[in-house]
């Protein structure tokens, strides 16, 4: 095994993958070539960092922090702090919604009937009503004539 082959076999050797070389030829080169041996040692130590990082501890306060942030987010989303998203209160919101819709309908109905009354009133022929009931036009010219008599 030459230096090039040795270097390119370090990962495979560290993973016990001996499909392209034997452990004997790898170790024989390591014992006779100081440079390659030191390089192998350094690469093995570098890759061992991965094992160390697997046991890394995370900040124990990170969990309460994220829970608080989620709660704050949830509250900010709610309307004036009202628990809009609480499933238990959904029927209440539905009821309020229906009630509001009914009230709106009633109010609009009233408005509509007022508009109709005004429309009918506008369409009445005042002159024909007056003549039919034989009422003098108190706002018109007849009034002065009437009072003069």
């Amino acid at each position, binding site marked *: 095994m030459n230096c090039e082959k040795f270097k390119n076999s370090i990962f495979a050797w560290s993973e016990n993958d001996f499909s392209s070389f034997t452990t004997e030829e790898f170790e024989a080169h390591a014992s006779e070539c100081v440079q390659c041996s030191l390089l192998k040692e350094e690469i093995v130590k*570098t890759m061992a960092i991965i094992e160390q990082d697997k046991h890394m501890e995370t900040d124990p306060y*990170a969990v309460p922090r994220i829970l608080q*942030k989620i709660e704050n987010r949830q509250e900010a989303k709610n309307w004036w702090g009202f628990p809009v998203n609480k499933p238990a209160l959904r029927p209440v919101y539905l009821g309020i919604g229906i009630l509001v819709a009914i009230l709106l309908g009633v109010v609009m109905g009233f408005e509509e009937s007022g508009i109709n009354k005004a429309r009918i009133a506008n369409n009445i022929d005042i002159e024909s009503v007056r003549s039919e009931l034989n009422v003098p036009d108190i706002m018109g010219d007849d009034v002065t004539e009437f009072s003069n008599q």
Partner: protein
Amino acid sequence: MTDKELITGIINRDNVATQFLVVNYHPKVIKTAYYFVHDMNDAEDLAQDVCVEILESARHFKGMSSLNTWIYRITVNKSLNFIRKNKRKQLFSQIENVFRKQDGYHAIEPQEPSFADTNTDNAERRKILERSINTLPENQRTAFVLNKYEDLSYKEIAEVMNVSLASVEQLLHRAKMNLQKKLIVHYSEYSKNKPNHELRKV
């Protein structure tokens, strides 16, 4: 709590489900994000984003994969997006620094991340390893991190990355070859300038 119970609870905004999710998955998500971004503050921010996304998109979880796989997928995507954005930011700040230097300003060099590693040799090795992993193409890096740091099987990696088993095998092989090459170049360059007995102190 089963995956289904947890998802149903999250959809119904059940506090117990939310707490279960955060307590059981948040630390894991921080670690996975850290293996990609190599900065604890960034990893915590990413983990928070991941938790919020899970809470908000739980109703879209169809159960085609396990909850674990789904969370890994969200974490990997968020981490890779973060790295892409950061790269763009770094590029802009480098350009800015060039112009500032031309104008006579002295740019402040970005600080190296600090590690609670008392062994300076290991701190240095960690930097070398992280830099080398960072230079791998995205999909090779993802397969490598999930396999080596997270101990996921090829099948699990294939599900997270949405690729075939053969692709995972190929990606991992290439990632290892590239990483080996990068480390050989780094340590060989160093040893050229150092006597043999000092190579240990790289």
